[in-house]
């Protein structure tokens, strides 16, 4: 380095060196906001209701929403590429139906699990292929997938099918002790493992970086020679896989398969992702945020069950208001000076 390269100045160099050199990446801001919201809501609950601050209440947020966390993680991948997956709720229902009916038919539990996960992934793969190669909006394709999966449920049975398989029931009843005399379920562990793997994949692999690049600008990603097709199809496979896994967790939670399970759950998942700070236009957001989004939704429900006088519709009203506020905040964040 004997040649002194010309130094380009005045790029914000008026700031002190230490400030200019490092600030927490702005991509964490929305997640910090969601976390603050969660803490704030929980604090309000603690002040208002006795027993709200018990550690078991917090653990129950995970216990009751493990399937939704898995669903939201899968949805985050899709939304990061700028897509949307409306089929996830129906795929959850279809998964519970396939699980319940195959178990009733006497399939061993592992085979059932593989069948369910395969069904979800293949459905995701098909939708992804149609979206990418036929250049059809994800909204329409996954809407079709939503109707298809829901319809398949009725094809299997219109009645609710109870799950009596021993592996399933013992797993569903099983609890894991945590210090302090509290407990979580195996489903919580599975959801957290999914969360960690997803975060690792998004930030530590080329696939993950390409997900963000496609969400930022698909055209640019293409011109940079990235594997756009594989990535775009891949996120729908991931979402399909996560939906069927969430379906398995949900069937453990309900111990039944039913066509009317998880109606509208895709919207809960989308709401959690958006409240978690992921931009619907793609390219920005973290899976951790989506998990926090799920916890925020769970806290609202806890509020209502603690109060006892509030109608459960307040859940929907609060989610609606929060969604609107978050989307507006995002808009302000992302608006560039013209």
């Amino acid at each position, binding site marked *: 380095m004997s040649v002194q*390269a010309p130094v380009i100045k005045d790029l914000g160099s008026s700031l002190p060196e230490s400030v200019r050199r490092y600030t927490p990446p702005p991509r964490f801001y929305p997640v910090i906001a969601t976390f603050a919201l969660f803490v704030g809501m929980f604090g309000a609950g603690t002040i208002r209701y006795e027993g709200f601050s018990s550690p078991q209440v917090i653990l129950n947020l995970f216990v009751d929403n493990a399937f939704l966390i898995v669903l939201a993680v899968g949805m985050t991948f899709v939304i990061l590429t700028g897509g949307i997956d409306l089929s996830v709720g129906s795929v959850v229902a279809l998964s519970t139906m396939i699980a319940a009916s195959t178990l009733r038919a006497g399939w061993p539990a592992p085979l059932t699990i593989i069948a369910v996960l395969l069904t979800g992934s293949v459905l995701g793969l098909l939708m992804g292929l149609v979206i990418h190669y036929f250049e059809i909006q994800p909204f329409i394709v996954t809407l079709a997938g939503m109707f298809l999966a829901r319809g398949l449920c009725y094809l299997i049975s219109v009645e609710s099918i109870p799950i009596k398989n021993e592996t399933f029931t013992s797993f569903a009843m099983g609890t894991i002790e945590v210090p302090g005399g509290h407990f979580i379920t195996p489903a919580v562990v599975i959801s957290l493992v999914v969360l960690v793997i997803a975060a690792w994949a998004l930030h530590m692999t080329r696939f993950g970086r390409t997900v963000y690049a496609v969400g930022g600008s698909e055209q640019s990603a293409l011109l940079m020679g990235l594997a756009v097709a594989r990535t775009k199809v891949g996120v729908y496979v991931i979402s399909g896989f996560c939906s069927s896994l969430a379906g398995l967790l949900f069937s453990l939670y309900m111990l039944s398969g039913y066509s009317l399970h998880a109606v509208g759950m895709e919207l809960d998942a989308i709401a959690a992702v958006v409240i978690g700070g992921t931009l619907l236009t793609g390219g920005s957001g973290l899976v951790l945020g989506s998990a926090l989004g799920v916890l925020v939704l769970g806290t609202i429900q806890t509020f209502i069950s603690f109060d006892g006088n509030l109608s459960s519709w307040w859940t929907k009203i609060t989610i609606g208001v929060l969604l609107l506020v978050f989307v507006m905040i995002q808009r302000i964040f992302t608006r560039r000076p013209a």
Partner: protein
Amino acid sequence: MTQMSAAPAQATRTAEPVVEMSGVSVSFPGVKALQSVGLTLRPGEVHALMGENGAGKSTLIKALTGVYSIDEGTIIVGGEPRTFSGPAESQAAGISTVYQEINLCTNLTVAENMLLGREPRSFGRIDTREMNRRAGSVLARLGVDIEPRSLLGSHPIAIQQLVAIARAVDIDAELLILDEPTSSLDADEVVKLFEVMRTLRDEGVAIVFVSHFLDQVFEISDRMTVLRNGRLVGEYVTADTTQLQLVQAMIGRELETLEKIERQAEQNTVRATGTPLMEVLDLGRKGSVEAVDLQVFEGEVIGVAGLLGSGRTELARLLFGADAADHGDIQLRARRTKLRTPRQAIDQKIAFSSENRRSEGVIGDLSIADNMVLALQASRGWLRPLPAKTKERLVTQYIDALDIRPTDPHALMRNLSGGNQQKVLLARWLITEPELLILDEPTRGIDIGAKAQIQQLVADLAQQGVSVVFISAELEEVLRLSDRLVVMRDRRKIDERSNDDVSVADVLEIIAGEVRDDA
């Protein structure tokens, strides 16, 4: 600057070319886009690729990078004949292209953008620390002092452009193609870009520089290749070439022959007296046109000449409010007026016919009649539909007056020839009875007969007292019609004169910037 850059050109004259294209032809259905074109690129040189719009510059670049396949000719890269099947393959061979619109992801960090798809990995995961270090060292090599971990979107366009170049450099590009890199940069930013280009050139990288700005080309390039209508005009050493010679090569006529072209038009009486219909002072917009002063008098035809990218279209858009001006005043009929939207301009009886006939004017699935009354209907508001009788009367009148074929008002617009479509668009604005008509390239791509009719129409309108701003790439046409001449270059108005005895050669000299000194 030219002397400085001339030195490496001398030094490396004998160096082995990085890329040698010869006899390259490319054709699209019905069009020969390139005919037997050659291009030789040597290491350590900035090579400007020049030509008017449609000359084949981008086709040549795309033929080189494998976006288009070539019909004939050879491409020798690094001493071996190659044919690339796509950008990825040419990239692997050391050819990197940075496009005019930056193709990076603003939502990722600078380092991620530079190394996307080539991230350093250890144990199967991306090594972020190594990635930032590598990006930082490339940026330092180019003298770009920014934090690799910062978001790309937080930097100005010029820096993003440099990051795009840094990405190309990290690929170990032996050839860097910059397609109009300066079109969205201001003067300071261009200086920075040129510093980086010189650094790379001195390291032995061959650079192709495509630009419409003559000054920039003369400042940075060592050699130039000029194309015209898909054919090679020649290769020139920048230091031995004058701007006038370059302009002639691009436009394609020798001065002597141009001087012989007889001006057939009778001189219009110049009516530049009294209060101007429109007067603009210091009107400009960042990145489009710098401060322009202009007066338009009633019944006057103002011709605007300039090369593509000189700001002639941008000026028209400002006058019509299609782009809002950043600064400057507009006075209409001696009253200060703001024109921020086309609607306001239309209310002030200004009409604008765009150069992009297809995308900004013609509505192909509507009939001639519907296309014609569009502007009038819009200015009336949708609550007061035009009576069917009036519409019919107006439409038949203008189909007659402008000799539009077919004469059936219900014929679909998309079935008309270019010339007839243009006439319908003119009729659309004439129906609104404008006092100022801005015509951007009204005769482009239409046959000679229709061209003459449109020119005649402009002259007649001026006789009737309509003021016209007439923009055209064809200098003869501009000179034939206009009372006063405005010459644009590098987004500035560089000259204005009344059209007495101005020849095409004079205009070329003005554009080339050689009259400014002694005028």
